[in-house]
């Protein structure tokens, strides 16, 4: 890879909790328009890496370069403003708002106190909300209270809430958990579309799904990178087989 293509560069990233190193001197580079899958056993530090990138957890040491800026010094909303979106493991949506309102509230306008006071629902917002809703297969449910959506639909909605902000890097923590086969297929297709003009990091357990989407796979174990490469090369890696893919 050449330097110009790198969107996210993580170097020597370390975070320790009470002596326990959840992420240990990690180096990770994600290119523009790349879809990267991160896999690894529970407790390998996958979610913690996402937490570190999006500012939810502060690093003990190391740097996270995103578009020439060091994210470790920024707060969560600043990181979002730079173009990083994050979906949580369990879908985090506003249950008592409608799908429309969920998307609207995520629309990047009126983000300041004053802005939100004078915010009006204009036609361009309506159009954009519909557009995104269509993309995440929820255009028929715009007025449904989000609480009533199925688990998979909630996952989509959260992805939609990121999409509407047009981030350059999207991080998805287990996006297909709880989805039906058909929903998984749809999600795979959605991710394929999404990463056409942005980079995506996906944490997933479902190997088949990872295989179907990822350009490149990173395997994590005990806070470190165990292997990196194509799905095939990773699957043949001895160490990986030992800790993870044994079966």
């Amino acid at each position, binding site marked *: 890879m050449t330097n110009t293509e790198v969107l996210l560069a993580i170097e020597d990233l370390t975070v320790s*909790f*009470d002596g326990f190193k*959840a992420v240990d001197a990690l180096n990770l580079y994600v290119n523009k328009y790349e879809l990267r899958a991160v896999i690894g056993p529970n407790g390998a530090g996958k979610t*913690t890496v996402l*937490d570190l990138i999006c500012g*939810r*957890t502060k690093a003990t040491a190391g740097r996270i370069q995103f578009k020439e800026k060091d994210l470790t010094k920024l707060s969560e909303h600043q990181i979002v403003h730079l173009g990083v979106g994050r979906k949580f493991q369990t879908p985090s949506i506003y249950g008592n708002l409608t799908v429309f309102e969920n998307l609207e509230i995520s629309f990047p306008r009126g983000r300041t106190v004053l802005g939100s006071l004078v915010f009006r629902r204009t036609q361009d917002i309506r159009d954009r909300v519909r557009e995104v809703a269509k993309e995440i297969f929820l255009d028929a449910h715009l007025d449904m209270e989000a609480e009533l959506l199925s688990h998979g639909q909630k996952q989509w909605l959260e992805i939609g809430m990121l999409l509407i902000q047009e981030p350059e890097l999207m991080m998805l923590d287990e996006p297909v958990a709880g989805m039906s086969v058909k929903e998984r297929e749809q999600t795979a297709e959605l991710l394929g579309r999404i990463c056409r003009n942005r980079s995506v990091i996906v944490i997933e357990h479902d190997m088949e799904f990872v295989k179907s989407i990822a350009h490149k796979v990173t395997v994590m174990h005990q806070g470190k990178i165990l292997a990196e490469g194509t799905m095939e090369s990773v699957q043949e890696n001895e160490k990986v087989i030992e800790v993870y893919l044994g079966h």
Partner: protein
Amino acid sequence: MGGYTFSELGSIFVMQGFSGLSLFCVYLLMALGLAIIFGQMGVINMAHGEFLTMGAYTTYFMSKLAVDHFPALVGIYFPFAIILGFLIAFGMGYLLEVLLIRHLYKRPLDTLLATWGVSLVLQQVFRSAFGAREVSATLPAWLLGSVKPTETIDIPLNGLFMMGLTLVLSLLVFIFLFRSRWGLKVRATTQNRVMSGGVGINTKKVDRMTFAVGCGIAGVAGAVFTTIASTGPTTGSLYIVDTFLVVVFGGAASLVGTVASAFSIAQAQSVLEFFLTSSIAKVLTLLTVITVIMARPEGLFTIRVRK
């Protein structure tokens, strides 16, 4: 401080150190019960001060009983008053948990409001039962006066007693929490309520007992406080904010934190008071506590854990 001999200054230093320690004991006694209730269970019990008052009135009542009817017992009633103070506060705490608190575990801030109401009710009950006047228990002679290790040093007996009791009580709480089966259940429940049920612990019963024990400890604190302060219907409200600050400052879930925080707040307060006026000392101490909480929102003694 010219004009004083070295030994005089030394004595003052010793006595000042002792005042700081007494204050530490006061704070710790107040906070121990709350550290269990708030720290372990997350219940904000604004009526905690009233459980303290309960213990104090128990002592007063016992002392009156002894003075009026059994003068021979005046010298020895006090330990029994402490035990009875514990039992009464424990019983009332148990009742409160059953009637009120258990319905509110999911709404911690609402327990604050409801228990505030409880504290109002209890204050009025005290007032109706014991009158609005402040009362004072007649203390046994062995609790009055001071020991004089040197000519210039006076160490108050009640302070010593309080320290001894604080030590014993802290040890008991420690044993209760860390060395008993019961404590094991409490800690398991605090860590993971669902899983505790899954290994066979009756978490509701644990809650009830934990809350009651916390209240009982407040009762003991109240009984002990009769040696240094008065008892009135509103006595408890004097302590409540300080108590919460001690617990919050130390880090709600950590018993060691509570001890450390009681110690540092007491020392700060006591030293500042010696050099400044009491009011300013109090203001400065509170401000420091707030600033520290700002810097460490989870309190002094918390472990950074993975989210």
